[in-house]
């Protein structure tokens, strides 16, 4: 299934302060998009626009796919891992995943949840409430949450934050898998996080 992210003339203004303007790019399936820029250059803002949770002041970002359109639209195609994305802390890891499947309209499956938790090495803590998790464990669980619906686009904002060496290795293998399965979008300052990219959007020059 061919998939493409296409953005044209994106501009974002908050209270008359221009964050960025004139952003245009396009990435196609089995490609990696790198969003680079210093702190405050609007990396997270661009990520939110791509995920469809923020309407840009001007321009548009579309996801074009020639496969069957999912009724949940963009939500069904995108998985996001980001520091500002929070988990429901009063529930356990299993409950969070189960809830995620329900919210996305899928019939929940414990096997899939166990498989995902195994993947991010959290299977042993699957019944513990997330409240007691360390920030690295939460970051791992966010990866499991983002992969629940096998998204064709995986968006990672600061992918390695709070992760130890084992966690970093897991994320690298997830990234490797995604770049063959669909589109991988990474927003980061640390270029050692990723092993090469196809398209780069640099926000430093985009005022």
């Amino acid at each position, binding site marked *: 299934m061919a998939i493409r992210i296409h953005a044209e003339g994106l501009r974002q203004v908050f209270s008359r302060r221009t964050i960025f303007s004139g952003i245009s790019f396009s990435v196609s399936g089995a490609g990696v998009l790198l969003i680079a820029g210093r702190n405050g250059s609007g990396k997270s803002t661009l990520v*939110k626009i791509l*995920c469809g*949770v*923020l*309407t840009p002041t001007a321009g548009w970002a579309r996801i074009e796919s020639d496969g069957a359109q*999912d*009724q*949940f639209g963009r*939500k*069904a195609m*995108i998985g*996001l891992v980001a520091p*500002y*994305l*929070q*988990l*429901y*802390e*009063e*529930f356990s890891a299993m409950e969070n995943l189960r*809830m*995620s*499947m*329900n*919210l*996305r*309209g*899928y*019939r929940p*499956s414990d096997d*899939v949840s166990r498989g995902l938790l195994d993947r991010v090495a959290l299977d042993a803590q699957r019944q513990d409430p997330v409240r007691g998790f360390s920030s690295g464990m939460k970051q791992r669980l966010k990866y499991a*949450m983002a992969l629940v*619906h096998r998204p064709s686009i995986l968006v990672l904002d600061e992918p390695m934050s709070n992760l130890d060496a084992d966690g970093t290795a897991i994320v690298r293998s997830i990234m490797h898998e995604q770049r063959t399965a669909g589109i991988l979008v990474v927003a980061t300052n640390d270029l050692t996080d990723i092993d090469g990219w196809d398209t780069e959007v640099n926000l430093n020059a985009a005022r």
Partner: protein
Amino acid sequence: MQPDERYGRRWLRATSAVFLKDWHAELRTRYAINALGMFVVTTISIILFSLGGEPASPEVLAGMLWVVLFFAAMSGMSRTFVMEEERGTAMTLQLQAPASAVYFGKLLFNLVLGAGLTLLTVVLYAVLIEGFVIRSYGVFIGVVTLGSIGLAAASTIIAAIIARANTKGTLYPVLSFPILLPLLMTVINATRLASEGTSWADAGGEFQILISYIVVVVTTSYLLFEYIWKD
């Protein structure tokens, strides 16, 4: 996982997931149940103290009942949205479920909360306040049911608005009151009619107003919710 299920069923699953999430979180902490229960008990005892055994007219008692319910709703019904915003989970929800599923899930939660609140208040009111007599039970039950649905419907959309603003608690009654005033005036009048004794035919106009109010508020909220929910 079967992504090819019909949209209606997937939407229903998402809506009930939003509702059940709040419901289970509530059962674990019992915050709303405890706090709102005590709120109702406290306000009713204040009314009892201030009446001091003096008989009050049906108008005053009908008004007081809805004053208790209004402020109880104002202290409890903003929580579902404000909590999402405070914990930063609003975006998690936004990324996964359609906006309409979030709205109807939250509305359902507030409807259940409102039903519990109304039941508790009416029972305590009927037991503790002597002058409060109901002559037309059917009409009274109808008015209280529709009234609590309308209260929850208007409170839910205003809660969604204030959760996105910076000041959360203080603004809530200020914004809700003008919206709820038509509903409150109607239910107070209908409650008075029910306690004086009336027929379904005589209270028919009140029911028409209540039903159309609920329909109008829910439809408008459904149409506008996406603008509030999305940044």
